[in-house]
């Protein structure tokens, strides 16, 4: 089991991608083991998506070495997936998009993300949070070795964001798959992330969320304010500070302050 846990699913060494006469990203070293969560952060155009695409094999690296475990099965949750109204697609049908699965497996997969009641719904009618959950279930039904999530909480409200991160953590704990996650929200890196890789055309810094938050390169790239607000989600973290100073709790209620809700201060998120 220990050998399983440290087995590298994928490793990029000195990886670079050149397109249109310039380097999109260069000198990336990255590896993901089973059960490991690696998060890529960085500003727009820093090469996060490019790096993820090389990892999934959609893009070819122009330089460096990319090694993948033979027969590596990848589950992918894309950043943007707008399904045209002209395409009638129920959630159940979406689940079997790239593979054949029994109705029982589909129902179980949806149940696992708390979307068991949505099977017959049209995907165009789902809310942002529901859609992301369904996309997660769709990627997981393939029993992937590696789950790649591109901005998994995009278009999801705050309470949904926390719930989604919890769900992703559960998935990792239950299935032991490796997870590569992209986040452009610099202030939010989940506590369960083992390694944060901060990109800006190259790797600025690498380490646990705590180490990256304190590294000079990170501070230079995003400023000290970003470091202060680099939120690391804790379990009991359940509220957000609104711009006007009030506090919105996960259950939706808004209070004047967070005083009567015990919380630990490294774990909050400032809206706006």
């Amino acid at each position, binding site marked *: 089991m220990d050998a399983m846990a440290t087995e590298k699913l994928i490793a990029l060494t000195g990886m670079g991608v050149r397109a249109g006469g310039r380097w999109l990203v260069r000198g990336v070293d990255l590896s993901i083991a089973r059960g490991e969560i690696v998060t890529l952060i960085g500003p727009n155009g820093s090469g996060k998506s490019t790096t993820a*695409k090389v990892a*999934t*094999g*959609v893009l070819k690296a122009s330089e460096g070495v990319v090694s993948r475990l033979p027969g590596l099965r*990848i*589950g*992918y949750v*894309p950043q943007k*997936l707008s*399904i*045209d109204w*002209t*395409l*009638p*697609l*129920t959630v159940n*049908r*979406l689940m079997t*998009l*790239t*593979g*054949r699965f029994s109705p029982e497996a589909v129902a179980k997969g949806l149940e696992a993300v708390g979307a068991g009641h*949505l099977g*017959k*719904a*049209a995907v165009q*009618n*789902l*809310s942002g*949070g*529901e859609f992301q959950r369904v996309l997660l279930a769709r990627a997981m039904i*393939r029993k992937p070795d590696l789950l*790649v999530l591109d901005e998994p909480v995009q278009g999801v409200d705050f309470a*949904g964001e926390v719930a989604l991160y919890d769900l992703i953590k559960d998935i990792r704990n239950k299935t032991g798959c490796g997870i590569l996650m992209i986040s452009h929200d610099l202030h939010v890196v989940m506590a369960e992330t083992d390694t944060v890789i901060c990109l800006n055309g190259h790797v600025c810094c690498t380490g646990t969320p705590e180490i990256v938050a304190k590294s000079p390169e990170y501070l230079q790239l995003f400023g000290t304010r970003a470091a202060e607000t680099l939120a690391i989600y804790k379990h009991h973290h359940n509220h957000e500070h609104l711009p006007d100073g009030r506090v919105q709790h996960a259950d939706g209620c808004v209070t004047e302050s967070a005083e009567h809700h015990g919380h630990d201060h490294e774990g909050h998120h400032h809206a706006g």
Partner: protein
Amino acid sequence: MMLDDFFYRAVIAGVGLALVTGPLGCFVVWRRMAYFGDTMAHSALLGVALSFLMGVNLTIGVFAVAAIVAMALLLLQRQASLSTDALLGILSHSTLAVGLVLVAFMSWVRIDLMGFLFGDILAVSRLDITVIYLGGIVILGLIILLWRPLLASTVSAELAEAEGQRPEAARIMLMVLMASVIAIAMKLVGVLLITSLLIIPAATARRLSATPEQMAVIASLLGALAVIGGLSGSLHWDTPSGPSIVVAALVLFIVSLMLPIGRLKGESHVRNW
């Protein structure tokens, strides 16, 4: 025997074609390839002219030219100096115009231009029917065989590719299938009306379907209904057959718009988080 009557021959040929254009038309609608299909269809006239010029089989000539135009467009898109929209406009009209000019030059052959532009379904022979059904079975068979990868790459090329499929191959396959449908459909409905048989039944089927598979089957059935209705109308009122089929398809589409919203499938769901 039914095949002895020109009307029944037309119905049998038209229904065979509609069964194929249904599922293929769904992809045209889902992937927003309507104008693309039009461009390929317009290039069919160039295919006709070149076939006469080089003495090759008409169906094969039309298929080849339509496929070449499709591939040319793919290559031009990669250069990306012009928008796809403008490229389609250029290819669509220039191939049609070059075809018309070539036909005018070939004074030694008599070409029924109207027949190619608007179709002459009442003139289909038993051989035409054989070609339609054999070609149709091959095309439908390929669509069924490749259904999952074709659909997956339609929903998201990126996702399909990340999970080990080949969306670019699916795209080229669809173009080849479209070129073949255009080649066998040209004689029936003409180059100017082929895309309507792809798009209108599929668009009509959308409001009656909850899954892609349902939409494909319903589009086939609606297309067949439009052929039967249009040809019957054409016989009754002595109207041109190709356009009458398109008008019948349009009538079905308008009727589908009148279905009450509550009847729409896969639409009812209460958001709860």
